[in-house]
């Protein structure tokens, strides 16, 4: 049992597991402030998989870090709100934060395979998490660890293995087991399978989904691999240069993408069965946030850029009740 169960705020509506409102995260650099996450608002519902896609430097990992307040200086949350089951995450004190992390929200990091300690056994690393948060005997924690390994498809005897004795896929399974150890309601996965081969990636994703059905947790899935995301996410958010530019159900984003960046991104992935023809993705290079222009950040790479894009930052507007995008073309279409 938990030392102290994490209590949601009593009077709040808990239909949203996590709500992020107008979040801004800045990096302080010698060349000036860089807004890595710029006014992002989104919600994660219980049991849902929300995918967050975008290229490197678009702020998707920074967003993930700030949800569990794992961001470190020079990163700084300068504006906005993060509410978890109605409770304000940004105002939590150290003790509450400790209960919140891993009990409620766990994180599988990018290159998770290398996030294991090389000099202690897998078992010690798993029970370390359990013992830090639960008042149980280490023998029971060890037994729980063995069960955890079995849930992720590894043999219980692997408790005695060192990380170097495991393959990349097996190490990734261990990291997922550790993330599951305290039965959190939300697991943040930052590029969890990027370093793995496609067959192993498929096996791990399948197992993860079986576990999700069993335990009912939500996933915030961060990746640059839009094809994988289109397959596993319920909803998809697209980020560009720190801003959320489009958000909708996976089907909406894939079949009716509204933002030119989303359209370009989807067209950048050659398909395995579609027609074999030349594709034109996105022109230009990713934006340097130190040289962020006035207006839409995507203007220089956008083929459909017109005058308002140069002066006004487009706001998120509704395409349907579940689908929003931030592009001036939308307003143009509805008014014209």
């Amino acid at each position, binding site marked *: 049992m938990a030392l102290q169960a994490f209590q949601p705020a009593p009077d709040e509506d808990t239909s949203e597991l996590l709500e992020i409102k107008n979040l801004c995260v800045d990096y302080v650099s010698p060349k000036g402030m860089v807004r890595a996450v710029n006014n992002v608002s989104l919600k994660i519902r219980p049991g849902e998989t929300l995918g967050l896609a975008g290229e490197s430097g678009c702020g998707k990992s920074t967003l993930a870090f700030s949800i569990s307040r794992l961001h470190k200086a020079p990163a700084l949350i300068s504006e906005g709100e993060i509410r978890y089951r109605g409770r304000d995450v940004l105002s939590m004190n150290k003790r509450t934060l400790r209960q919140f992390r891993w009990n409620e929200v766990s994180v599988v990091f990018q290159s998770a395979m290398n996030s294991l300690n090389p000099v202690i056994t897998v078992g010690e690393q798993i029970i370390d998490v359990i013992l830090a948060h639960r008042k149980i005997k280490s023998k029971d924690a060890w037994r729980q660890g063995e069960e955890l390994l079995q849930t992720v498809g590894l043999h219980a005897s692997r408790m005695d293995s060192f990380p170097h004795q495991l393959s990349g896929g097996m190490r990734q399974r261990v990291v997922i087991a550790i993330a599951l150890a305290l039965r959190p309601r939300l697991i943040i996965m930052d590029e969890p399978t990027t370093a793995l081969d496609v067959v192993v990636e498929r096996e791990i994703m*399948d197992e993860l989904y079986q576990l999700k059905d069993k335990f009912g947790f939500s996933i915030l899935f961060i990746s640059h691999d839009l094809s994988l995301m289109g*397959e596993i996410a319920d909803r998809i958010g697209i980020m560009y240069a720190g801003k959320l530019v489009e958000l909708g159900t996976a089907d909406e984003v894939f079949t009716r993408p509204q933002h030119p960046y989303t359209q370009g991104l989807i067209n950048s992935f050659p398909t395995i069965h579609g027609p074999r023809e030349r594709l*034109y993705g996105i022109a230009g290079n990713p934006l340097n946030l130190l040289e962020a222009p006035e207006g839409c950040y995507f203007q220089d790479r956008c083929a459909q850029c017109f005058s308002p894009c140069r002066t006004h930052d487009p706001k998120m507007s509704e395409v349907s009740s579940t689908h929003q995008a931030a592009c001036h073309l939308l307003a143009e279409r509805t008014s014209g």
Partner: protein
Amino acid sequence: MTVTTEANTPIVSARELSKDFTLGGSMLERTTMRALNAVSFDLFPGQALAIVGESGSGKSTGARILSQVHEATSGEVTFRGQPMHELIAQGGKRGFASHVQMIFQDPFGSLNPVHRIFYQIARPLQLHGKIRGKTALRERVLELLETVGLTPAAETADKFPYELSGGQRQRVAIARALAVEPDVILADEPISMLDVSIRLGILNLMLDLKDQHGIAFMYITHDIATARYFAERTAVMYVGHMVEWGNSDAVTQNPQHPYTQLLLAAVPQPGSQNSRDMSQYQHKADIPMWQPESTGCPFAERCLHASPQCSTQLPKVTQVAEDHFVRCYLYE
């Protein structure tokens, strides 16, 4: 035999290439791993051959033999019909390198950080004696930068690598490979470290070079979808063996080898809902380490169709269609 013309005469032919590596430190622990086993392939001018496989499948080893990083343990490579070792004996390593150039995965590690872009491209031009005179050199460098889409070229030439993005650096690496006017370019995962939005630009640039300059490409990748996009022909590798190869469409749309079928089933496809049960395609087993004394088909243990002979003798090459070959007993 068909009519022999420029386009269907291979510029590079590798026959039965094998490469062994010795592992382990002390005499007692020493073992030999076979990274490449009896691999044959041809590269044609103006065409690309994609080598697809998981990490450790030996897909880079073949390219490293062609680029003289490794020496083959057995087998032969011919360049325009002449054995590679003879050419190296005659024209030296650099002479051979002027025919075969490489593009690497990491554009952050493959450019010298202390030199300007001009130097990075001028260097191979000077070393290979391609150009005389300062003005001619500068003109040629700028021309190369324009070819790879780095405009304005004069401005780019004066920059340092750190001032460029990953995609731009990879274009510099491509310009550097082009500088010596090679016949063959070996591209080892050239886009896997780049941002998704610029990968396609690099692939399209290589497509243009292939078509316009008639360069033969070897495109090494783990992404079978880009293999089909870029390359006319695709070879699938598993544990040092080429298990299936031929026309890219034939291999991807009509896969014959059980491993190719597994690989294709695992590729994510947006729209198809998750959980495609991989046990329909394989038994759970570890990927073996191939040794010179290993026998049979490397996929036998994971294969759903394996018969006893699969673990005793390597299947022969079977032709299943005009340009489609497979090493599997199911088709013998």
